[in-house]
C-alpha cells in the first residue's frame, strides 16, 4: 500500500478500515542468502539497500525483541555531517544526503526537519578549532558557516551570552543538519525492506554461530537454526557479546549514555544547539519536549540506565547555556548502551570468518549514520569491497595504527 494524501482522505471517508500492517510477520525459512543480525535502524537499512540498490534476494533480519527497541528508540534524533577527519566526513555527508531524500525514497514520513545545528564556542582558541572544522567540512563539499556573537544572538537570543565563565564568542552552523523521527526511520526502512521481500523476524535471538572450516554456515537462534550464505552483524551496544560467538574480541567497551526529555513546551529552540564548554546538546521535538543529553556515564555498563551524577552534570550544562531551562520539568530519562570503540569511530568491515561481516562501534553517534551505514554495509555484503566513503572504517586500523580519532584522546573509550 502506498501512502499518500489521497489515501488518507479516502480512509477518513471510509472509517479507516483499509489500513493494513506495514510489514509482514513471516515464519523464518530454513536458509537465506543474507541474514542481518539486529533489527535496529542500521540492520533494517542494510536489508533495504541490499534488496533495493544491490538487487539481492532471500534476505532476513533477525531481531531479539521488537524492531527499533534498542538504540534506535533511545537516541536524541539528531542528524548532521559536521565531522573533522577525512575518514569520517565523506561518510556522514553521504548519510546526510540520504536523509534528505529518505521520505521520498521510502514513501514514509520520517519527520526530517533540517533546522540546523549550532555548535557554540566560548573562547578564542575554540573559535579557531571550529574554523578549522568548518574549513575541513567545506573541503569535503559540506555546508558550514562560522557565526560571530551577533550572528548567534540573531539565531538564539535566549542563550546566556555573558556567562562569567563561559561567554558565547560565536558558533559553527551546519544549516542542513536537524532532526528526524527515530521510530519512523525504523518503521520506514522496515516497511520498505518488507515490500522488497525481506523477512523481518522479530523475537528471534541469535544464540550461536555455526562456523566450520573458517566459514559461517548459519545461526543458532531461539527459533531454530537458520542457514545463511552471508551474515551481517549490526547490533551496536551488544557487538562484543555477539561477535564473541565467533571467537572474536573487539576493540570496544559497552557504556551507558543517558538522554532526557522535558514536558511539552511551545516552540522555543529553533534547531539543535550544543554547548561548547561542557557536554550538553538540546533540540525541541515536534511535540514540544526539549530533548537533550550529555556525556556517557563513563564506566562499562549493559544496564540501559545510568546514575544521578551525570543527570546533574547535564542539567548544569543546560543551566549554564540557557538558564530558562530551569523552569522546565523533566518528563523522562533513559539510557542506551553504546559500543564505545577505541578511537571513537565506527567499524564496517569483513572479519576473519568467511561470510561474516561486522558493523558497529558507533559510540553515541549512530543515529545520524543510519542511512549511510545501511548503504555501506549493504555494499560490503553484496560486493565484498568497502564502499568508498567507508573505506577507512576498517577493523584492522587499530593494529595498523590508522586510527580515526576525532577528539585525539587515544584508546580510552570513555573519553570519546
Amino acid at each position: 500500500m502506498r501512502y499518500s494524501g489521497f489515501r488518507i482522505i479516502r480512509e477518513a471517508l471510509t472509517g479507516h478500515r483499509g489500513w493494513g500492517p506495514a510489514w509482514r510477520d513471516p515464519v523464518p525459512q530454513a536458509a537465506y542468502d543474507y541474514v542481518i543480525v539486529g533489527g535496529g535502524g542500521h540492520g533494517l537499512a542494510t536489508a533495504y539497500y541490499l534488496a533495493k540498490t544491490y538487487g539481492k534476494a532471500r534476505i532476513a533480519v533477525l531481531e531479539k525483541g521488537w524492531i527499533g527497541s534498542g538504540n534506535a528508540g533511545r537516541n536524541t534524533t539528531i542528524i548532521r555531517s559536521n565531522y573533522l577527519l577525512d575518514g569520517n566526513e565523506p561518510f556522514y555527508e553521504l548519510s546526510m544526503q540520504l536523509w534528505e531524500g529518505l521520505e521520498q525514497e521510502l514513501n514514509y514520513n520520517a519527520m526530517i526537519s533540517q533546522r540546523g545545528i549550532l555548535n557554540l564556542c566560548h573562547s578564542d582558541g575554540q573559535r579557531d578549532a571550529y574554523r578549522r572544522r568548518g574549513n575541513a567540512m567545506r573541503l569535503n563539499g559540506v555546508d558550514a558557516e562560522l557565526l560571530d556573537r551577533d550572528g548567534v544572538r540573531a539565531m538564539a537570543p535566549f542563550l546566556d551570552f555573558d556567562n562569567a565563565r563561559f561567554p558565547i564568542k560565536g558558533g559553527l552552523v551546519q544549516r542542513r543538519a536537524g532532526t528526524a523521527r527515530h521510530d519512523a526511520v525504523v518503521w520506514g526502512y522496515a516497511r520498505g525492506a518488507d515490500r522488497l521481500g525481506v523477512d523481518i523476524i522479530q523475537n528471534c535471538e541469535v544464540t550461536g554461530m555455526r562456523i566450520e572450516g573458517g566459514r559461517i554456515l548459519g545461526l543458532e537462534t531461539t527459533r531454530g537454526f537458520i542457514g545463511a550464505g552471508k551474515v551481517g552483524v549490526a547490533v551496536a551496544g551488544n557487538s562484543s557479546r555477539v561477535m564473541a560467538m565467533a571467537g572474536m574480541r573487539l576493540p570496544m567497551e559497552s557504556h551507558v549514555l543517558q538522554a532526557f526529555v522535558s514536558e511539552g513546551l511551545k516552540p522555543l529552540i529553533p534547531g539543535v544547539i550544543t554547548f561548547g564548554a561542557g557536554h550538553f546538546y538540546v533540540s525541541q521535538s515536534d511535540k514540544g519536549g526539549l530533548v537533550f543529553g550529555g556525556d556517557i556515564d563513563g564506566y562499562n555498563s549493559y544496564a540501559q540506565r545510568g546514575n544521578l551524577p551525570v543527570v546533574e552534570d547535564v542539567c548544569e550544562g543546560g543551566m549554564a547555556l540557557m538558564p530558562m531551562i530551569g523552569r522546565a520539568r523533566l518528563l523522562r530519562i533513559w539510557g542506551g548502551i553504546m559500543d564505545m570503540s577505541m578511537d571513537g569511530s565506527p567499524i564496517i568491515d569483513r572479519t576473519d570468518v568467511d561470510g561474516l561481516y561486522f558493523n558497529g562501534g558507533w559510540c553515541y553517534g549512530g543515529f545520524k549514520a543510519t542511512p549511510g551505514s545501511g548503504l555501506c554495509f549493504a555494499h560490503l555484503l553484496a560486493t565484498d569491497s568497502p564502499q568508498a566513503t567507508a573505506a577507512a572504517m576498517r577493523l584492522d586500523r587499530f593494529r595498523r595504527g590508522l586510527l580515526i580519532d576525532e577528539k585525539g584522546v587515544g584508546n580510552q573509550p570513555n573519553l570519546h
Partner: protein
Amino acid sequence: MLIPHPLLGPRDAQEFTYLGDAALIDRPDGLAADAAERFFDYGYLRDNPPGEHRELWFHEQGDRSWLVVTRNITTHEIVRVELARDVALARGRGR
C-alpha cells in the same frame, strides 16, 4: 554508586576516575619477541562481557589508591573491591 573502599569504607563513585578492564594490570613485556602483537591486544582489545566485570578505578579525589572493583555491569551491583596493589602482587608483579 557507592564503592566500598577497603581502607576508607563506602565512597561516592564520583571521587574516582575509571580506567577500564583490570586486565590492564598485566602489561606485556616490551622486550618479548611478539611484543607488538601483545601490545595491540593489551591496548585495544577487550573482553567486554555482560555480568561480572573486574575493572580499575582510581581514587583521585581521595587517597589516590588504585582499586580493582568487581562489578556486575548488567545491574551496577558492586560485588567485591580490592586494592590493585594486592591484586598485582598476587599476580607476580614486582612492585
